[in-house]
């Protein structure tokens, strides 16, 4: 069994598409670090001077229009604004963006990296299986190892290990790089533990996406089918957004949508969203807003079940199916 897994891993790492995918994911995650770098950098002297100058100019202008300012303030307060929010006197922090904290930028970087790596792993796994059917070599393989459960398990384990390694390297790298950039600009590292946990869950997501893709490709015997499911879902998402407006009760399926669960599983506090239910009353239409939260645990169970079901169905089909 170990030799079988090693053979599958050997094939996975030797595939051109694997190499290309890994490079693309590394590149995307690397480029994002440029954005992280500029976010965690404090404003440069020139930016500071330019901001100062603009601030002074606006402040002077503000102070010249006392009457107008008072009028705007009053209007704002009448509309229910609070005192602080209705104070339009320019403040320096509006003109000079301060360095973003590590704890603020890291979740964004992790989210981006997880999506990229997950997408890459999805593609990698789908074509890993699809190529066997396109070339017909699965039939040849089975004349060497006829035990289908062994063949299935070895492939699944190879996909799991391969995507797990990719996820660990990319997400670990993303977190480490963001921390490094932040400290080098004098930032402080906070919420390190929570973010590490989030990155670990990100690795789990990458693995889940790879395994789901593996299952889909095996069921359909084609790379394109798995990718089609992904694109189909992207399309469905747009349709759903439109449908939610027409058929508000449809919003009840939202806790079962993969993209919400992806965010929920990655974020420390899960994912909150608001369903809107328009209500026609005597006075006109009001919109009732109901807030929901998908917790991290719920999202975790969601991904576990989705992965297990896909793999289970794929195995049942693969075990019995004629290979011609």
């Amino acid at each position, binding site marked *: 069994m170990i*030799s079988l897994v*090693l*053979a599958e891993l050997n094939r996975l790492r030797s595939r*051109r598409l694997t190499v290309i995918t890994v490079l693309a994911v590394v590149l995307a995650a690397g480029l994002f670090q440029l954005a992280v770098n500029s976010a965690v950098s404090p404003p440069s002297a020139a930016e500071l001077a330019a901001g100062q100058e603009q601030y002074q100019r606006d402040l002077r202008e503000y102070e010249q229009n006392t009457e107008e300012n008072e009028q705007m303030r009053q209007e704002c307060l009448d509309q229910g604004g609070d005192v602080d929010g209705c104070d339009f006197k320019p403040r320096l922090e509006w003109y000079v963006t301060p360095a973003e904290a590590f704890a603020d930028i890291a979740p964004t970087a992790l989210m981006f990296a997880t999506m990229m790596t997950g997408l890459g792993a999805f593609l990698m796994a789908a074509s890993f299986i699809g190529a066997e059917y396109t*070339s017909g*070599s699965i039939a*040849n393989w*089975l004349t060497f190892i*006829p*035990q289908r459960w062994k063949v299935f398990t070895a492939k699944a384990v190879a996909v799991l290990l391969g995507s797990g390694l990719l996820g660990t390297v990319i997400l670990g790298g993303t977190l480490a790089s963001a921390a490094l950039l932040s400290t080098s600009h004098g930032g402080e590292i906070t919420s390190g533990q929570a973010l590490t946990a989030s990155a670990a869950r990100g690795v789990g997501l990458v693995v889940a996406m790879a395994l789901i893709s593996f299952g889909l490709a095996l069921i359909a015997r084609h790379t394109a089918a798995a990718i089609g499911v992904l694109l189909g879902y992207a399309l469905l998402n747009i349709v759903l957004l439109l449908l939610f407006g027409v058929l508000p009760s449809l919003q009840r399926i939202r806790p079962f949508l993969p993209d919400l669960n992806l965010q929920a599983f990655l974020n420390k506090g899960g994912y909150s969203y608001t369903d809107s239910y328009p209500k026609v009353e005597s006075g006109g239409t009001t919109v009732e807003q109901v807030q929901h939260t998908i917790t991290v645990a719920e999202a975790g169970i969601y991904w576990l079940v989705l992965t297990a079901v896909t793999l289970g169905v794929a195995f049942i089909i693969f075990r019995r199916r004629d290979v011609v």
Partner: protein
Amino acid sequence: MTVSVGARRSLPSGIEYAIDATGLRKTYRSRKGRQVAVAGLDLKVPNGGVHGFLGPNGSGKTTTIRMLLGLITADSGTMRVFDQELPAALPSVIGRIGAIVEQPKFFPSFSGRKNLALLAQGIGVPKARVGAVLDEVGLGDRGRDKFRTYSLGMKQRLAIAGTLLKDPDLLIFDEPTNGLDPAGIHEIRATMRGLADRGKTVLVSSHILTEVQQVADTVSIIGRGRLLAEGQVADILAASGGESVLVGIEDVHRAGTVLTEAGYRVAPLPDRMLQVSRPSAGLHPAEITRLLAGYQLYVHELTPVRANLESVFLELTAEEHLGAHPTDRTRA
């Protein structure tokens, strides 16, 4: 179907069979419907030597081989390989079976060597064996080229090298000479002979009889998923009674019907020719001419032929050709 020529002639008793299958059945089910591919086939392959597995296109050869290898499940029937019940014992006997089903199937963008290395790794065969089997089939210097760049003959040889990784006792080659040039065909034949001479059993399927006639010790002839004849090549030839007549005629189809109704066996050949025989009774060319003339069918060519395996084969599979493709008069 009535089979009188060489029907179910058993092989010499006391022989141990490498393959012993009885009552094999397989129906493919697809959205377009059901297709009976193998319909109660019995197949006995003696231990050692080359066994030809003959049948026209679509007669179920590949399907049978797939069932033996566990690639598809049989609907019913029993299979034994080296006296072990399949598919239950497949994991333990697979190491003794090397098989190429239809075309060689490898990853096109990996080299021949890489493809074999993956197989070797998968079954736990030392890596050194890869180089050895590549050399054995004469691919030593092209091993690092991509499979995609191989010629048909090289692909075939790579597939043979793959089967040799296991050092099997039974080799199953499904139409191994398909698309090869004479030199390539000769080479494959020599390889099969060589393997048999080393004590291995080779099962080779083909729809071209002459190809197998030269190398096979025994043959099974099947048609429409059933066994039509089996035994040693010489026996089948002797039992066929030998004679047949080639009839050239304009309206082959009507002539075929007339002759069949009169109790002749008719096999269509290219160029408006029919191969006509009558296993149960004597064959008189003059009678054939007279019979056809009675239906305003005039023979423009009439050649008596001595029996060879080809004519036996055509005779046995004649009904199949007429039944399956009434308009297709070409030999496969």
